């Protein structure tokens, strides 16, 4: 009653009030998903088939994993614009390590060494970002923009721009095309990553610290929380998740590519924001980020099936992102009004 926020005057119609409360609670995404499903199902008979849904999910699992990485950084109030460059650098270094190791050892060893190198490179990239942001206090936007350029330059330098081929076939068989219980391996791994991140964020102290640092760094400090360690965890985890996505993608395309993931920074931020993750940090759930990424996948898949020109697809993605940001603003303003008992 005493909130001095005269900006939001509450509607009094009970239907509008109910809609507003529902909107604050679940966000705009379920509505968008429903609209997309109806539209695409009516445009193409193949859209709602088991095979199509499975293949859409599999194609999408890479973006889901990368979005999880972006999401954890967004929670701290930061950005990771280097996520695409990390993907490229990991792809290249995984492939090169694997090819080199395969000359002297069994395919299994070569694959494991390659994956280990890729994961270390990904987390190392995250560490570089974290050091710049957490200890030198560089704005995350600038820091990751800078490292994005450096990492992708490094990837190009390592390969001279030529794709790395000659990977062990087992690598693609196991991680690219294999199915467990009829479901593709990348989908399993994406699901595991989501569950793992959910456990970290909701059931552990470091997870809670991530939310608190994103919500108010000063208040977190007064609660005895180390901002440095928290940011370190977030950016290294983001690098690790980008590496997992990159390894899976490399297995799928059977080469190490230095130009992989160029559209990931936009796509992952868009996915998280559409899912309802706040750009101001401190609020958002794992499920929001996953659904946001899946939604972007549904739209891309549906438009492909409906044979919509890929240029139009880019326009649609941009428009949906802008719309989601507007909806996010509206939602946080409405939330204040709802809790103040005005709606």
């Amino acid at each position: 009653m005493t909130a001095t926020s005269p900006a939001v005057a509450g509607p009094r119609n009970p239907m509008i009030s109910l809609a507003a409360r529902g909107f604050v609670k679940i966000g705009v995404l379920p509505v968008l998903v429903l609209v997309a499903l109806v539209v695409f199902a009516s445009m193409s008979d193949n859209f709602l088939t088991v095979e199509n849904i499975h293949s859409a999910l599999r194609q999408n699992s890479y973006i889901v994993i990368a979005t999880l990485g972006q999401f954890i950084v967004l929670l701290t109030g930061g950005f990771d614009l280097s996520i695409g460059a990390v993907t490229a650098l990991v792809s290249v270094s995984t492939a090169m390590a694997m090819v080199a190791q395969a000359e002297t050892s069994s395919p299994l060893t070569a694959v494991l060494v390659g994956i280990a190198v890729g994961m270390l490179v990904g987390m190392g990239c995250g560490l570089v970002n974290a050091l710049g942001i957490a200890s030198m206090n560089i704005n995350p936007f600038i820091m990751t923009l800078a490292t994005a350029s450096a990492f992708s330059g490094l990837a190009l330098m390592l390969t001279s721009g030529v794709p790395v081929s000659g990977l062990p076939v087992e690598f693609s068989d196991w991680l690219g095309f294999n199915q467990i219980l009829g479901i593709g391996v990348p989908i399993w791994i994406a699901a595991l990553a989501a569950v793992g991140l959910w456990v970290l964020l909701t059931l552990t102290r470091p997870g809670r610290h991530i939310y608190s640092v994103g919500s108010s760094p000063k208040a977190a400090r007064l609660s005895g929380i180390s901002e440095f360690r928290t940011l370190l965890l977030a950016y290294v985890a983001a690098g690790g998740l980008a590496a997992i996505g990159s390894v899976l993608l490399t297995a799928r395309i059977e080469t190490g590519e230095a130009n992989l993931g160029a559209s990931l920074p936009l796509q992952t931020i868009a996915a998280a924001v559409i899912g309802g993750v706040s750009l101001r940090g401190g609020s958002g759930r794992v499920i929001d980020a996953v659904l946001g990424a899946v939604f972007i996948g549904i739209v891309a898949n549906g438009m492909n099936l409906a044979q919509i020109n890929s240029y139009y697809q880019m326009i649609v993605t941009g428009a949906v992102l802008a719309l989601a940001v507007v909806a996010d603003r509206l939602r946080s303003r409405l939330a204040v009004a709802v809790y103040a008992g005005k709606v």
Partner: protein
Amino acid sequence: MTEPVLRVRGLTKKYPGVTALDRVDFELRRGEVHALFGENGAGKSTLISIISGAQHPDGGTIEVGGRAVELSGVAAARGLGISAVFQEFSLMPTMTVAENLVMGSEPGRFGFVDRRRIRRLARERLEEFGFRIAPDRLVETLSRAEQQMVEIAKAFRPELSVLILDEPTASLTDEEAERLFALVEEARGRGIGIIYITHRMAEIRRLADRVTVLRDGRLVTTVPGDTPDEQLINLMTGRVVEDLYPELPVPGTGVMLAARGLTTFDGSVRNASFELRAGEIVGFAGLMGSGKSAAARACFGLERVDAGTVTVAGQDLTGAKPAAVMKSGVVYLPSDRKQEGLFLERPLRETVTLPWLRRAPMSAGPLLRPGRERAVAGDMLRRMRLSPADPERPAASYSGGNQQKGLLGRALLGECTTYLLDEPTVGVDVGARVTIYEQIVALARAGSAVLVVSSELPEILHLCHRVYVFSHGQITAELIGADINEETILRHMMHWGEPAVKDIA
């Protein structure tokens, strides 16, 4: 000079389940400062947001200059000469002072903004009030007080007849507040009617011609500005002032925290020595910027220490980080709850439990136990008598008094041995104060050392066993027993006579 410039009759505003204003009458004369007084939730904010056009009443009439009006919005109210300065500023931080002052009515020429004229208009406006702020400065580079000045200069316009100030001194130093008071007095002299919201008795004493007291959305009464404090509090709460402060327990003797020759890097504290003992409530009194808050912050590792030592239970913790100080059983309650205390968009539970998550019922090994955590937070909110005591609501959705009670609950949850409470009742209504005082005394009774840093003299007088008075970064007196009286404290607050005079001039 006594004709009413504004008169509202039977003003009513209902929200689902709550009547925020119930048939309130209010009258503002030309050239008067009319204070609105009441607990949080009494209806002050609703009343001023209706008068400033930001909200629409469900019933009642508003007359401006004797004519019935319909305030369709803030712009309509402004057109009638009503301007409001809310606690949340409306300035654009990345624009200059001049641009902000003319915002919405920029003088133009041939469709272009006329920068030179904007600057001249702004300078004239600032000079009129005697504000020495360069019109070219960016608003984000101004102190909060200077921003407030710009906000006020923006609210003043030639046709201004009603000025609304919502707790204008909340973030000002005493010196800055003095300038604001002078300004208010000048506005009164010009025949402007001023509605002034404050929780501070001293400001009512100083400025108000009349006081209107609201309680639970109803008008209690309108009384002259020189009505005694006790009577005003009585009117506001239905309580007598003696009931506010509980009886103090007998203090112990063991030293819990000691500072020797403490000097901060920025010079805000110089050569301060003090100690906090078990079962004792110690007060730090002083003007804003006297170093009383910085001294407490330095003990908690929030100010860089240049010289001196801080020991907790015999252990040297000089310059330790907050996390390390907390491990030794010390907790700090910040004075700025929005910036340094609360996680506003998160459930209040997270603010309350965050520092103590490692403790037994809330964690099992590396994992949290959400059910237990919720129960612990809920119990604490009930103990602090929050309404509603719902730990899952965002911290931002609670009133200031409830937020402060939640933060104190967070400190209590740590079961610490030393509590550093920085302005524990800042911007808090009397009802919440009673709860907070009870808890502070209960802490001392249980054997903890409690430090109360306070700008509220009554708190220092009634709540403390022992008082250190700060002035210009130094401790000028340590008072015990009968020496803790208003006159002695004020004398020592002003101890450093000469620089204080220089600063004001």
